[in-house]
């Protein structure tokens, strides 16, 4: 009795190469653009060092600055779009394995180009606007959602100095702009003039507004621990090794991560909190009346937000881009004295970017697993969970952290000990989890087969 369909033999070599080239080339190109553009976007640096002018007196400084910024913004939006497409592909592949299906396997090797095909298909579909809908709001809603999504990339760190703008209120900025998404969803729900859409919009408003609170308080914990709101500052306050990460140096921060993760699932409308678009209850919720490219925008944002969620988690709790053994002095040394940093510095930046992306992808994977495993909660249960459990726990974690910081200030060894203990506990949990999974698979009469991919 085969448990999982045996996948057909590999695609032709040319297709594999093309897929690999595009699958690696697209993100690599965009990452490269981010890598090059984010230091250049500092006007001081670029205008003075590369163009050789004094930005204070040179009349075109703002023009150049704006141009580079626009280019960077374009790259980041594209990065968001492409990464959300790739997330769709990854999610579909993972879910198809979880569900004993074959899944995407037609367009490109392993069906990699399916997301492009889907996007193109949606692009060509008729852009229907219901006759009774409020046309202007209906058209405007996707832009709110898209704007809220695209703006997050401004303060999202990718590497040691790879960030479009290291705002000193970075984490506040992020929570503020992601809240814009709910405005779009509410508009969509209201303007569609459909009862199902309205239900979805109302549910989403209730859900997102409620879960902003535990999320907001939970992310205060790493802020307290690092004493800054800046994303880069928070990462710099952590070390590279797991026992130096916020999540493991403070028991309350581990709790805060769980709270934050749950709240992020709710804010991103992901199972088990996908009530606003619960297809078995509300048809498609606020998306019911959308078609064509407007629908695609919502989808793009939904999947792109996974990246944002995962990246914020990695930043706040898992040490972001910190590379083991590479402290700030190494970066400073590698930068050299010249106006344009030395090659080694660029290499270090690339390395930090790889670390950050790897952590993000791991968290992202967990979100995908959760989505395809859990059923959906009911709206009252969801509200209960938020107000009766998450909000109080977040407050407790917050207060605990205040006391903890005092303790750690007195006895710095405490942080290290907790870090080692919690890391160990985490590793043990991981191993037990893996063994349980293996035992479950064996109990079902199947075996782990990694070649059938």
């Amino acid at each position, binding site marked *: *009795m085969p*448990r999982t369909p045996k996948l057909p033999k590999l695609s032709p070599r040319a297709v594999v190469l093309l897929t690999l080239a595009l699958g690696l080339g697209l993100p690599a190109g965009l990452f490269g653009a981010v890598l090059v553009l984010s230091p250049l976007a500092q006007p001081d640096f670029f205008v003075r060092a590369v163009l050789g002018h004094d930005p204070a007196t040179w009349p075109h400084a703002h023009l150049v600055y704006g141009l580079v910024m626009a280019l960077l913004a374009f790259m980041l939006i594209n990065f968001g779009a492409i990464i959300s497409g790739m997330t769709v592909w990854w999610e579909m592949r993972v*879910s198809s394995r*979880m*569900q*004993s*299906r074959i899944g995407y396997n037609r367009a490109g090797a392993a069906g990699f180009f399916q997301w492009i095909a889907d996007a193109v298909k949606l692009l060509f579909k008729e852009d229907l606007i219901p006759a009774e809908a409020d046309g202007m709001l209906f058209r405007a809603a996707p832009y709110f959602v898209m704007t809220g999504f695209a703006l997050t990339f401004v303060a999202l760190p990718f590497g040691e100095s790879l960030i479009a703008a290291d705002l000193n209120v970075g984490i506040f900025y992020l929570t503020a702009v992601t809240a814009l998404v709910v405005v779009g969803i509410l508009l969509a729900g209201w303007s569609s003039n459909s*009862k*199902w859409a309205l*239900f979805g919009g*109302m549910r989403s408003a209730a859900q997102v507004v409620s879960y902003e609170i535990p999320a907001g308080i939970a992310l205060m914990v790493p802020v307290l621990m690092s004493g800054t709101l800046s994303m880069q500052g928070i990462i710099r306050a952590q070390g590279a090794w797991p026992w130096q990460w916020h999540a493991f140096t403070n028991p309350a921060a581990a709790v805060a991560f769980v709270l934050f993760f749950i709240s992020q699932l709710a804010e991103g409308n992901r*199972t*088990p909190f*996908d*009530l606003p678009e*619960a*297809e*078995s*209850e*509300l*048809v498609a919720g606020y998306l019911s009346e959308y078609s064509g490219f407007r629908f695609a925008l919502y989808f793009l944002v939904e999947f792109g937000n996974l990246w944002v969620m995962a990246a914020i988690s990695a930043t706040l709790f898992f040490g972001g881009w910190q590379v083991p053994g590479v402290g700030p002095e190494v970066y400073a040394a590698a930068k050299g004295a010249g106006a344009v940093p030395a090659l080694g510095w660029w290499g270090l930046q690339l390395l930090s970017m790889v670390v950050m992306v790897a952590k993000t992808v791991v968290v992202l994977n967990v979100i995908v697993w959760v989505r*395809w*495993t*859990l*059923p*959906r*909660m*009911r*709206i*009252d*249960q969801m509200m209960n969970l938020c107000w009766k459990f998450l909000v109080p726990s977040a407050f407790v974690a917050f207060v605990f952290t205040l006391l903890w910081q005092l303790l750690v200030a007195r006895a710095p060894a405490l942080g290290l000990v907790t870090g080692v203990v919690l890391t160990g506990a985490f590793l043990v949990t991981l191993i037990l989890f893996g063994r349980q999974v293996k035992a*479950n698979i064996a*109990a*079902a*009469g199947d075996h782990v087969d990694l070649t059938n991919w």
Partner: protein
Amino acid sequence: MEKLILRRVDRNNEEMILNFGPQHPSTHGVINFIVETDGEVLRKAVPDVGYLHRSIEKIGEVTGWHGFMPFTDRIDYVAAMFPNEGYATAVERLTGIEVPRRAQYLRAISCELARIASHLVSLGTMSMDIGAFTPMLHGIRERETINDLIEALCGARLTYNYHRIGGVAFDLPEGWKERTLAFLDHFDKFLVEFDRLISFNEIYVRRLANVAVITGKDAVDYGLVGPNLRGSGVDWDVRRDLPYGAYDDFEFAVPVGQGFKGTVGDCYDRYYCRCLEMGESSKIVRQALLQLPEGEIMAPKVARNLKVEAGEALSRVESARGEMAFYVVADGTNKAYRVRARTGSFTAMGIIESASPGLMIADLVALIASLDVVAPEIDR
């Protein structure tokens, strides 16, 4: 003209009137509910059926006695063995045709496989309605194997048309017994896995336990049958209590709801009764295959142009959706005078209006799913 169903809801107050269906992902076919809601909480859900009415009972009056058999498949196309068996049994009761023992065993085997397949679909779609997509595909995967087996048996995967008046159409193909036994070995493991995946999931349990409780008294009064009745704690199974066919030869338990995770008669009891029933069906198939007697599979001398003397008979079979009764009336010609199919989904729909007040929209979905209504069975 105003639809009369709208008289059932109050349209002059603040509440919202929703059309839940006919094209809605969780109505399990084309069924419409007029739902009166106050925000998320239902005042009432009034079912509006008939979208799938194909006048199968009228068709039964114009086709011959044998000719109606393929149409019975369409009464319940999720588990088409049962209407087959119900109709054949009714006509056999009316004509006094004796079905050979082997044919009765084959009927039991095919029906129990169909029951497993039907429950897999039902439980899978139920978990999908609750929001978990994966269990459904796991269920469909197992059902696929059953479909393969039944296809090997009778050549059809959905509308089987396998039973005949007086027996069954085909004997077991070569190697079928071994294949089926191998599948059952695998399936028993699958049941454990399925429970681990979804049945004991905390969110799932909380979504279903204590939701839409139907007491045993109400269940009997509203004529619920099958797993819905047993989920409410009424210990009744036609296969055990009024045995037909080969069922008195088999050892099997009848799972009854006992408030597995909440109250007796809640959605979870109905759900879990089905889970347990699949295990029992698997036992029955195994026993039937091992005890299968040799012999004929068709009663001798069943006339092609069957003429049935005047009279009437009712047959009861335990279908996947509960007791299915076929009532046939003959007037001495070669066609039925009246054929009537009484189905489980039909009465299950009748209770929704009285069970719905106070539920939330998500609970209504759970209620519909836990009653396992199948649109063609309601409308026929």
